[in-house]
């Protein structure tokens, strides 16, 4: 076996509508590892790419919500299975991107996968925890059902390259939304890998869209896009949020702006991207 074998290098593309295109702008940017060494050229998403992703997300969301909660849970769990089977690869990439020790990187990947399993088990619990029958004063059967907001745009954590992506993505997806997430600008590779794995996890195309690029350029585009229902900016610096929220208010988006990966925040995120729909039905002979 030749030691001088040339590696077949990977091209890192966007994930839009279940397919892996380059940016329509043709742009790429260099991703360096924690030591400044070249890792890869990664597509630099443009506003048009985001627009395409929203179109795909909107179309896919109806299909995603029409599947049973059980089915949605199984799909998310399948992604966890895929990630687990590539645990080593993910850990190597996290280690390179973040400059942490190998053991730390493995723990981070394990936490991320376990978190995905946690989300997989949420899909068919949300109705029971956040919905229910209401005892109105009158001959009516009244029940509240939690339904997803629709299309959620999210900004991943700039530094935590794997876990930081999962929390802004899978809460909304478990609740039945479709998501367009902008991965960490400097450390996007784990996100791109996860995108690849989602393609073999039975996600309908368009439910999960992963863009790589520049948050300063794209966040305002996301905020202003009218056909986006929810906006997760918990990972944007606090002093940069006001302008984004002002823009998002144009279409009364649901905005999430809390930071942190704890469980309480994860549940808060899900609740932000859920609407309650209440039905009244008369009762009588």
């Amino acid at each position, binding site marked *: 076996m030749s030691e001088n074998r040339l590696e077949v290098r990977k091209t890192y593309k966007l994930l839009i509508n279940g397919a892996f295109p380059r940016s329509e702008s043709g742009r790429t940017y260099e991703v360096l590892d924690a030591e400044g060494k070249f890792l890869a050229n990664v597509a630099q998403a443009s506003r048009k790419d985001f627009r395409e992703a929203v179109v795909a997300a909107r179309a896919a969301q109806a299909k995603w919500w029409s599947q049973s909660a*059980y089915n949605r*849970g199984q799909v998310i769990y399948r992604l966890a299975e895929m990630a687990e089977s590539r645990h080593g690869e993910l850990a190597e990439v996290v280690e390179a991107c973040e400059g942490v020790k190998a053991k730390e990187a493995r723990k981070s990947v394990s936490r991320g996968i*376990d978190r995905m399993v*946690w989300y*997989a*088990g949420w899909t068919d*619990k949300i109705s029971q925890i956040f919905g229910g029958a209401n005892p109105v004063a009158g001959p009516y059967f009244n029940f509240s059902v939690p339904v997803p907001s629709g299309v959620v745009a999210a900004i991943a954590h700039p530094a935590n390259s794997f876990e930081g992506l999962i929390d802004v993505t899978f809460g909304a997806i478990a609740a039945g939304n479709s998501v367009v997430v902008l991965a960490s600008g400097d450390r996007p590779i784990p996100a791109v890998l996860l995108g690849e794995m989602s393609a073999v996890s039975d996600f309908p195309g368009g439910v999960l869209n992963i863009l790589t690029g520049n948050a300063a350029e794209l966040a305002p585009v996301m905020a202003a896009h009218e056909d986006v229902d929810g906006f997760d900016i918990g990972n944007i610096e606090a002093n940069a949020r006001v302008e984004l929220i002002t823009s998002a208010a144009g279409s009364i988006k649901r905005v999430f702006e809390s930071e942190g990966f704890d469980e309480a925040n994860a*549940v808060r995120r899900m609740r932000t991207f859920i609407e309650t729909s209440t039905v009244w039905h008369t*009762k009588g*002979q």
Partner: protein
Amino acid sequence: MESLHSQLGGLQYDDAPESAAIAKIKNEYGLFINGKFTDAKEHKSFLTINPATEETLSQVAQADSKDVDAAVQAAKRAYDKVWSKTTGPERAKYLFRIARLIQERSREFAVTETLDNGKPIRETRDIDVPLAAAHFFYYAGWADKLSYAGYGPDPQPLGVAGQIIPWNFPLLMAAWKLAPALAAGNTCVLKPAETTPLTALLLAEILQQAELPDGVVNIITGDGSTGAALVEHPDVNKIAFTGSTGVGRMIQQRIAGSGKHLTLELGGKGANIVFEDAPIDEVVEGIIDGIFFNQGHVCCAGSRLLVQESVADDVLRRLIRRVEQLRVGNPLDKNTDVGAINSAEQLARIAELTSTGEDEGATRHTSTCVLPQKGFWFPPTVFTNVSQSHRIAREEIFGPVLSMLTFRTPEEAVQKANNTNYGLACGVWSEKGSRTLWVAERLRAGVIWANTYNKFDPTSPFGGVRESGFGREGGRQGLEAYLNV
């Protein structure tokens, strides 16, 4: 012009059966205690047979009181040393593994269940096995979310659960018991029914493949005496029983004052209520599903048909025509609708109760289907001119026998439906939503199906009121049975 007769079901269906070979049933089984099977030769044994052919399938162990003690001690040790220290997320991952393994070996499970129970392969394949996997999948997701279940910030398990299940849905009942118990953090000793132990024993293999820690689940086969020993064992903290009201009553009496927690899922005499504006073709299917699904061996069966008088004749005519189309026979045949009765004892019970129907003056319509020579079979039967005092209107037959009564008003329908000591399930058929809801809230039943029947889902709580038992299986409410809340 003369009248014509168009024969239904004339096209012949395939009788090449699903192959039994995939089941890989062993000649003999020991007990599954502490993660291993004991040596079958160490135990007295009994046979389990295929009720469709009366052929012996295997020899299984009769667990005596020493075996019950060994199983309970294994469960207690596993609880104290391992499972109570296993975090929610880790418990979840075991349950997800089990769900996936059931999915992977689903054909094996379906064929084994059909051979051991007598129910059609179409049902084991499309209903029993998928629902069992789904049940584990659903409760896996609760294991790390108990604080959201509405039982307080940190609800605790009960300890060791002794679980006794019936023969009508052997694998599914095992799933209904084990999944929530394990999710909540308990360890289990499960006793499958005497006539249907095989899928529970196959499940034990799955638990080994999932590497569930030793002793977390123990499966002990045996007859009523095994169950009694389990119920009375002092180190069991919780008893969950599904079976007849008679035995449920005995259990409740026997553990009185012991401090053991108890849930019971018992018998029923479900009323399937048909209003004049019901969608007629779907109603006929629903009546059929309500009583002939699983040969009527269903605690929540729609065994009393209450039809609004104005449409009774039309419904009956269509129903009888449809009953004649039911294919009764080899359960391994994918085209079979109705399979075998589970045992000679059950068949005798069905026959005895059915004959009282005629004795008491009801009119009997029985399918003219040809029954196989060997095995235990009962032809689908409908009784009309039934009054509420007839035994066939009051007692659970647990077979493919339907009793039809009539009513005039919604009020009368409710009164007749509730005229029973049972309260498990009912059906309501109407296109008028307000009436359906009005009737539903007046029915004394734990489950009400509207424009459908015999639908089950792990997210939907199932259980009865009054003498049909207490406690719920499935849904968020299903956790309550296994938490100390």
